[in-house]
């Protein structure tokens, strides 16, 4: 349909609102937009079934998030219910489960649920629409080895969810019932083992077909690479921590960029000698430019708001719930993710990739 790079830009632009804000209006709009893209373009995809699986997973995680907030958070001015309270001591600390339920905790739980479900639905839509292997081929050579691992991991999730269903069925027919957490080992142990076995077969298959062929040039000493990787990870973690506090966020962003740059340099150094060719050389068309352009514009708007007017993204219902702020520019940035639908409609720009 469209080039994988265009879909790559689209998924980044669609994920950003879900990662940067808890404002339920923006989140609902983002999910709505992704839903339209899927319904319009992705439903006929062979991997469409995985979309509903991931949607169900997203809803389950979302429900868990709501339940967790309602049961454990009692902050908020608007009391809407009272549940039986249970007090337990955990590691010396007294924890109360249940008790007063506030509208604020419920709404905050819901916004977290929307964020989680939205991320999964966006990834599922990307999964249904983008050709992973094309995306993989278009990654820079020095990132190829890492990209294939990520690509396989992305396609592995839905596969393992399907296997999970089969394991549940098989264990249920053995008489096992999944009622509490203690009933889960037959599912998770079997799933983990199955996943590992599949990974090993796939890795064997890739190695047997020359994946990761030896570098033409000798690599830097292993110890040097290990030290640089450790240092880069340290810088990345420091950057992430600094980014969380507004006074140091700029320094944090710089540190993150520096750490990322160091990791990229190591990867480049490791992979620079690997020879690899491409079988397909796809054609970049107007529709791809439209999607990529709209996505980049959306990314620029989001990052601009993040750096210059972050308060516009913040939604915090405590202590008293207020109507979430809405800015038309942010709404527009979200709507830009409809670009694939628009491009698909235009007969001059639609193509079969």
């Amino acid at each position, binding site marked *: 349909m469209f080039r994988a790079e265009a879909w790559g830009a689209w998924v980044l632009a669609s994920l950003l609102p879900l990662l940067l804000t808890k404002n339920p209006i923006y989140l609902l709009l983002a999910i709505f937009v992704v839903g339209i893209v899927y319904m319009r373009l992705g439903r006929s995809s062979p991997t469409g079934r995985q979309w509903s699986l991931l949607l169900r997973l997203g809803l389950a995680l979302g429900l868990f998030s709501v339940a967790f907030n309602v049961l454990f958070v009692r902050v908020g001015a608007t009391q809407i219910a009272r549940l039986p309270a249970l007090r337990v001591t955990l590691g010396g600390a007294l924890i109360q489960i249940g008790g007063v339920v506030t509208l604020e905790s419920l709404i905050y739980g819901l916004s977290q649920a929307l964020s989680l479900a939205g991320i999964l639905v966006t990834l599922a839509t990307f999964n249904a629409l983008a050709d992973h292997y094309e995306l993989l081929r278009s990654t820079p050579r020095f990132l190829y080895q890492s990209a294939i691992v990520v690509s396989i991991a992305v396609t592995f999730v839905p596969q393992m969810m399907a*296997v999970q269903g089969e394991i549940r069925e098989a264990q*249920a027919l053995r008489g096992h019932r999944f009622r509490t957490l203690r009933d889960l080992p037959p599912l998770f142990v079997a799933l983990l083992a199955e996943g590992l076995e599949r990974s090993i077969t796939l890795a064997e298959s890739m190695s047997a077909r020359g994946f990761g062929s030896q570098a033409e040039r000798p690599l830097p000493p292993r110890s040097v690479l290990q030290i640089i990787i450790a240092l880069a990870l340290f810088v990345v973690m420091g950057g992430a921590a600094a980014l969380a506090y507004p006074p140091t966020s700029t320094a944090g962003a710089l540190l993150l960029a520096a750490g990322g740059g160091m990791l990229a340099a190591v990867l480049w150094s490791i992979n620079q000698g690997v020879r690899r060719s491409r079988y397909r050389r796809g054609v970049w068309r107007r529709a791809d430019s439209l999607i990529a352009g709209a996505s980049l514009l959306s990314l620029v708007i989001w990052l601009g708001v993040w750096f210059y007017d972050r308060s516009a993204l913040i939604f915090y219902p405590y202590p008293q719930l207020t109507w979430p702020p809405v800015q038309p520019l942010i709404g527009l940035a979200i709507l830009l993710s409809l670009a694939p639908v628009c491009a698909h409609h235009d007969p001059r720009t639609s193509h079969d990739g």
Partner: protein
Amino acid sequence: MMVDLSGVTYFYPNQPTPALRDVDLRVPTGSFVLLVGPSGAGKSTLLRCFNGLVPHFYGGALRGRLRVGGRDPVAAGPRGMSDVVGFVFQDPESQFVTQLVEDELAFAMENHNYDQRRMRRRIEEVLDQLAIASLRDRRVETLSGGQRQLVAIASALTLQPSILVLDEPTSQLDPQAADDVLTVLQRLNQDLGLTIILSEHRLERVAQYADQICYLPGGGQPPLSGEPRAILEGIELAPPLVQLGRRLGWRPLPLTIKESQPFALQLKVRLEQAPIPSQSIRATPKSRATVTRSGKSTMLVVRDLWYRYNNHDVLKGVDLEARSGEVVALMGRNGAGKSTLLKNIVGLLKPQRGSVHFQGMDVHKTDLATLARRIGFVPQNPGRLLFNDTLAQELLFTCRAQGLPPNDVEPLLASLGMSQLAAAYPRDLSVGERQRAALASILIAKPQMLLLDEPTRGLDYASKERLRGLLQDLSRNGTTIIMATHDVELVAQCASRVILLGDGQIVDDGPTSAIMTGSAVFASQVNKLLRDERYLTVDDVLTGLGESPGGR
């Protein structure tokens, strides 16, 4: 020599006993070598030595001298061997990296930095060689099992390796798809001189193609290698035709139906002249059906069953009944609806129309826990069941889950030949052993009806023989058995009835002997040879001749 191994011994990490011991093997260029041996004998391990996956991928200690295609796989590693050795794995599904067939074919060449023109030429050649040009734009998940295996072979061939190594490539295929794959391999061997080494349990499918058989006995014994007839003459594992030939002294020992035809004429005469013993050979179809249907109570009634999936009718109005103690084989090509029918019977899938009643209970209105106490279901992939630390715990888990007292696991494990594996980690077992472990974990609860989905996948002849005995014992004790299988020899040995499914419908339903004799594909080797409803197995023939079965 394309392959030259001498004194190869290999230990997996932390294992006190070697998986391979003192293996000597020489394979001339252009040979077709069949690697056989009991489950767990080390066949997959040996195959992985050829391209360095062992020891590079698994670690452990490897001793001895290896030369494959002029290279040392230990020094070169799997990547370094990838242009010499093409490798095809047992499960085609889990070896694909990309989504499109054409991309899959290009993957290895891209890794070797071939230019685009060269890649295009190679892909066209391979598509033509394997006659799969129509699949080039297909997504791999839309392919049938046989097509997937052909694509896996094609993707291993694009680098034009000197050797093609295949680990049980037909174990998951129906007879027709398996024949298609093997025909392609034979053509590659004969037309291109490609050296082929493959492991396989169902020797009746492949023995005729081999120039050389390497037999790995397991248990630390050194392998035997040589000309097929010589090897099959002396080993326990042998296809039915060879067993019959050995028992009746046919020389040269026939490997194919064609080679057996001259002996068959004499055999038919002998069978006609032989006094039929009092214990009948194999009851005539009519009388057999009457006995089965008149004396036993009806356990299962399926009426007008329709099941739709992905806008496709997988089952179309299936009607069937099964009685107490009946052994019913569901046969048909991959995708015919066998597994779907089993899942509908056990209540895992809900049909759009129709009903399934087991002992009068509507299974789709009964909860799974209640059904699980009466119906045992062994899925196609035994890994779905196994998760405990030991095999014994696996069996006891079933007892606990069904609220049964802990049974003594030893007799059941002994009947499946697994006593020595009671303390083993189930997922460390070989494919065949896992299959039996999954079966044991269901049988421990003594279900009244047993549903088996491809129960002989990965089983060697000895394991199949044990399974046959077990199924016959269960049947005698009144357990109804319904098995979806491609294994015609198992069906010939223990099924009383065959249901042939095609495109979601019952194409034929009748006594095993009648169905097999009327089918060119779903027939046992002995039946193909004699085309007589009374003779499906070697035992049938021996009984017909007045000789004692067994000991061949």
